[in-house]
């Protein structure tokens, strides 16, 4: 089967400061990948390159078997790959939880009723029932994180890119996220400093260090 994501020979620099050089990265369907590395090693940058939010200086990005260069190419990528941001405050921009979760599905062309059904389903899965009508900025840090995850799940992506999914979460919430990933998600890349979470959630771990990406296990 074709791979979902195929990065080839990617080099990226922020204002002439090299982040990584000649990196290759492949995600195949069904793969559960962990990505670790010291702070500032470019883990988030790598995920943003896949989503087309940052443009590498060199290299090619192939997603779902197609070369992606322009913003228009990345539209499909953004609709089919779910990206959880490191900071949930930035990901929740609608007034209420319900609206925020429905935002993605409505943009995908779902009807209002379908969107509301998806909201309900997603809240059921993550145990967020009762929060639907809460105002997003009044949620606690952990709740924000779970709602942010819910907004990503609601778009039913084929592959997830999760940037620090376990940060700010208590044990119980981490369990809920883990059980979602194990039972409902088949393909994902998790960036985390949380060793236990990475070990529990993923089967293949890469380390990004000194501008190079290598397979750890």
């Amino acid at each position, binding site marked *: 089967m074709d791979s979902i994501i195929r990065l080839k020979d990617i080099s990226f620099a922020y204002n002439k400061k090299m982040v990584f050089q000649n990196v290759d990265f492949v995600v195949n369907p069904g793969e559960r990948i962990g990505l670790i590395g010291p702070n500032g090693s470019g883990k988030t940058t790598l995920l943003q390159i896949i989503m087309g939010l940052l443009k590498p200086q060199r290299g090619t990005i192939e997603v779902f078997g197609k070369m992606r260069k322009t913003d228009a190419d990345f539209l499909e990528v953004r609709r089919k790959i779910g*990206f959880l941001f490191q900071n949930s405050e930035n990901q929740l921009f609608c007034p209420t939880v319900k609206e925020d979760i429905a935002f993605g599905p409505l943009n995908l062309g779902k009807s209002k009723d379908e*969107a509301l059904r998806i909201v309900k389903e997603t809240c059921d899965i993550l145990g967020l029932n009762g929060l639907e009508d809460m105002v997003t900025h009044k949620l606690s840090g952990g709740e924000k994180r779970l709602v942010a995850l819910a907004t990503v799940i609601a778009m039913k992506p084929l592959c997830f890119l999760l940037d620090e999914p376990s940060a700010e979460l208590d044990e119980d919430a981490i369990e809920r996220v883990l059980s979602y990933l194990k039972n409902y998600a088949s393909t994902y890349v998790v960036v985390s400093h949380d060793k236990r979470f990475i070990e529990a959630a993923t089967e293949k771990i890469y380390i990004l260090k000194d501008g190079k990406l290598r397979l750890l296990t």
Partner: protein
Amino acid sequence: MHLEEFAEGKSILHNLDPRVKIIVFVVFSIFCVLAPGVKLPLFFLFYSLALLFIARPNTKAFISRLAMANLFIGIVWIFIPLSYKGNTYLALGSMNVSQEGIQYAVSITLKSNAVIIGTIALISTSSAFRLAHAMLHLKVPKKLIILFFLFYRYITVVHEEYLTIKRAILLRGFVPRTDIHTYRTFAYMVGGLLIKSYERAEEIYKAMLCRGFGGSFPLLDHFRMGHRDALFLLLSILTFFAFWMKS
């Protein structure tokens, strides 16, 4: 930071259709601001006081907001009576306080307070989101509404950033003084806030792109205009006309 304290209430005004409230408010403000003399603005002040009585906002918060606004009106009282030419009411050395000037200042005070109280009773009694939604229905340009709404959503976040920076500064023993070090610290604080806000804005935009943002926010709930809303609209407009006829 609590932005919508007046919106949390259960009065009739809170439950009215925000579209109707915005329309009434716009008509009210125009009539009120254009009203000549002292008598007519006084009528409008009575109208907004009546609304205030129905809305029953938190007294303390209400008075503090009104006081803040009247601070600026105080400045009007310093300049207008002195600079307005007319019959002398009081002579202060070489300066003249004119009768017309005082009348004019009274008129301004009445009008401003009527509009401010009207804003609190009519506009602040709806949540920011319902107002944005109502404006969308009233065909206000979309870009303005998105600006208004995102401003509302993120001002608390910027405020939190400010508090974080302030705490960090205080924790390292900072005491403001009148010296270069203090000014520089304040400048860093403002600069830091600007940069953080800019970066945050970029991140939010990225998040919106990832969720398929195409320039507009889809709506989930819709308003329904009832008899009460129509009645309120009609009564208010009739009252405004009656005021004009009367004077």
